[in-house]
């Protein structure tokens, strides 16, 4: 368990007033909210900020936390709270902004230790759990299997709560889209009334793809073509996640021209499309022969791509 510096997380001094702490929290929460900030570490930062505020906004918790002193000397490694460090303090329920995810072990140990089976969790019927899963675009074309590690609270025979880890195997259905949810019936948290467990919902996201940009069922990409393919037109073979397709390039194709490959996008009824934006790529003239060909074009083709600039000349 690592020591958490809650003051650092909110970027406030240890003597900051309750009002300053609230202001710092609100500002940081806006900045790092995962729905607003899509940065990779925003979510972790947002959790830290919430956890810090959960402690520092509560005068009793803050006082207890301050008693722990500063971070233990380096090299000591894992942090152990002193025995009876919390005697004389009473903590109210710690729900609030927690929701998905939960707080660090540090928080759990200090502020939830010794509490009854329902502390920090709603008593009564089972609750749904929410999570996220990232898959490759290709996985949606074929369907995939993923192993998931889940950690859930389990009530022991003596009424204490322990965290139990388990691994489950999940089938990602074919044709799933980013933003859709997979339901795993009965895989949510267990109810504390001994009833059935809730469902587990997984929000699906696609990992960034080097070529394709997904938008719903459709995929977008830049398709490089040669100047002669663009000029002469003709058929090219294009590899897609759905297999190789034959694509007809029109004569005198332009850079930026959009080609639609109907039904080659993500599977479904109907399937999505692939939109290829043509990009004319010029070869480097590195051989004598290539230079000669370009020179011949320069000589024999009356082409001035800057003709329109004439009208704006001084």
């Amino acid at each position, binding site marked *: 368990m690592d020591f958490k510096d809650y003051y650092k997380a909110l970027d406030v001094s240890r003597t900051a007033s309750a009002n300053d702490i609230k202001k710092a929290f609100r500002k940081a929460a806006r900045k790092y909210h*995962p*729905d607003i900030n899509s940065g990779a570490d925003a979510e972790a930062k947002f959790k830290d900020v919430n956890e810090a505020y959960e402690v520092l906004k509560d005068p009793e918790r803050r006082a207890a936390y301050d008693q722990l002193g500063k971070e233990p000397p380096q090299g000591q490694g894992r942090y152990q709270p002193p025995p009876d460090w919390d005697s004389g303090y009473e903590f109210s329920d710690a729900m609030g902004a927690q*929701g998905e995810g939960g707080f660090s072990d540090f928080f759990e140990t200090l502020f939830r230790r010794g509490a009854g089976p329902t502390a920090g969790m709603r008593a009564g019927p089972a609750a749904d759990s929410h999570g996220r899963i990232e898959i490759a675009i290709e996985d949606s074309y074929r369907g995939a299997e993923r192993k998931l590690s889940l950690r859930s609270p389990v009530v022991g025979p003596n009424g204490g709560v322990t965290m139990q880890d388990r691994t489950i195997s*999940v*089938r990602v259905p074919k044709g799933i889209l980013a933003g859709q949810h997979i*339901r795993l019936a009965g895989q949510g948290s267990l109810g504390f009334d001994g009833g059935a467990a809730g469902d587990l919902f997984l929000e699906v996201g696609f990992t960034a793809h080097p070529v394709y940009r997904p938008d719903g069922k459709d995929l*977008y990409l830049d398709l490089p073509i040669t100047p002669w393919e663009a000029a002469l037109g003709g058929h090219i073979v294009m590899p897609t996640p759905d297999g190789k397709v034959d694509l007809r390039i029109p004569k005198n194709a332009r850079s930026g021209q959009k080609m639609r490959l109907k039904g080659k996008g993500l599977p479904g009824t109907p399937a999505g499309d692939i939109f290829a934006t043509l990009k004319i790529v010029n070869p480097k003239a590195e051989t004598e022969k290539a230079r000669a060909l370009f020179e011949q074009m320069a000589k024999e083709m009356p082409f001035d791509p800057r003709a329109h600039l004439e009208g704006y000349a001084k």
Partner: protein
Amino acid sequence: MKLTMMRTDIVEALSLQDLCRFCQADETWVVELVEHGVLDPIGSTSGNWRFVGTSIVRAKKARRLNRDLGINTAGIALVLDLLEERDAVLRRLAQHEAI
């Protein structure tokens, strides 16, 4: 370790009650989101509303923005619209930078 293959299904559509349970919100709040145009259910009366696709993701986002930042319904509607615009701009930007 024993691994059992879980039965999974894609969440295609949710009723008003399902959506409330899904994002741990009450009905009045969801109705308010519909009135602000944040959610766009299929069906004429709240009794037979079906929330599909983007409405489900938007409801979840809306709930988080409300819970974590204390934003009211009108604010959520504005934030979600602006976020969508921003994401569209970022997508277009990425398209141009990729070349």
